[in-house]
């Protein structure tokens, strides 16, 4: 991105009350903006609870070994941020813990080697870290808040859940006066010219994004049986399928700012969502 475009984007958000941006790619929220973000997240969590989702409180890092098993470090090494102690003299490699890149990675290890006889839903909010070339307030941050709802079940359970999640989130956006469209997505990491992963994502769409003015404020992802097989999670004797609905809280705030202006006091009430 052109540096002047970046600085203009940052300048445009200086009028947003309660947004405290740091060029390291992090934002602190205060006042009504912070309260609104919390109320919005609680609406997401209430919807998750209505599906029977159990809460999960995650640690900041994925346990050592989990990123490798999930394929994260081989697929997205450029986004990774490791947590490393300054002093670590036990002789072991200190670079072991990955700061959470996406909330749902915390779910699958908690279900390792389990045999389920019905679909299970979990919900969690995590501070996620993604390294990027350019950071923009609320839009592309090094650290941001992600609320996820995860379904672990048979393939039809996951398909049904993702369909419900897409419809529910679309209805929320209508209530909030935020125009959106749903579009299937490919990870930009995959280079169309050279990557077989890109072609597979294009022809077998497992990820749908909720886009507001081109900004992905949510995504709905089917992992098929990948995590079920990786973590030996079985449902009725078969490897579990998993799917997640993910909502980036800061991006929802940005979409609301774009539609309703910088003062969260005048925005539609998120209590009416769920």
């Amino acid at each position: 991105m052109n540096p002047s475009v970046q600085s203009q984007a940052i300048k445009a958000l200086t009028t947003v009350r309660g947004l405290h941006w740091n060029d390291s790619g992090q934002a602190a929220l205060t006042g009504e903006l912070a309260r609104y973000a919390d109320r919005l997240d609680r609406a997401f969590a209430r919807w998750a609870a209505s599906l029977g989702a159990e809460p999960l409180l995650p640690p900041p890092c994925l346990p050592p070994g989990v990123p490798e098993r999930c394929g994260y470090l081989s697929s997205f090494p450029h986004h990774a941020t490791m947590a490393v102690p300054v002093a670590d003299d036990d002789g072991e490699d200190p670079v072991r813990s990955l700061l959470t890149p996406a909330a749902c990675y915390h779910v699958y290890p908690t279900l390792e080697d389990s045999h389920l006889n019905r679909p299970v839903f979990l919900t969690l909010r995590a501070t996620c870290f993604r390294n990027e070339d350019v950071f923009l307030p609320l839009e592309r941050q090094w650290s941001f808040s992600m609320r996820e709802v995860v379904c672990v079940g048979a393939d039809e359970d996951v398909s049904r859940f993702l369909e419900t999640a897409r419809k529910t989130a679309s209805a929320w956006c209508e209530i909030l006066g935020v125009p959106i469209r749903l579009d299937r997505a490919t990870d930009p990491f995959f280079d169309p010219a050279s990557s077989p992963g890109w072609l597979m994502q294009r022809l077998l769409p497992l990820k749908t994004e909720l886009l507001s003015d081109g900004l992905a404020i949510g995504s709905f992802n089917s992992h098929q049986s990948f995590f079920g097989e990786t973590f030996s999670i079985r449902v009725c004797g078969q490897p579990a399928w998993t799917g997640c609905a993910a909502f980036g809280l800061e991006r929802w705030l940005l979409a609301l700012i774009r539609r309703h202006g910088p003062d969260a006091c005048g925005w539609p009430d998120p209590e009416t969502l769920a």
Partner: protein
Amino acid sequence: MMTASTRLMKLRDWVRGQAGPVDDDSPLLESRLINSLQLVELVLLIEELTGRPIRPDQLLPASFRSIRTIYENFLGGQSRPEEGA
């Protein structure tokens, strides 16, 4: 010039060589009969059989769903490949 039914036969042979005994309606990608590397080879095979590159706007999930849909969308096949083969 290869006929549509010859192209279909070559497609079937290739898919079955990769994935084992599958029928013309087996979902190739959803059922993971074809992995991402094999998918690239499949696209190259289709281009070889037709003598034409596949355009980006032709990369649609519905077209690549099964042997039948590939036949209908790329290899000049009509709607009933079993009968024409």
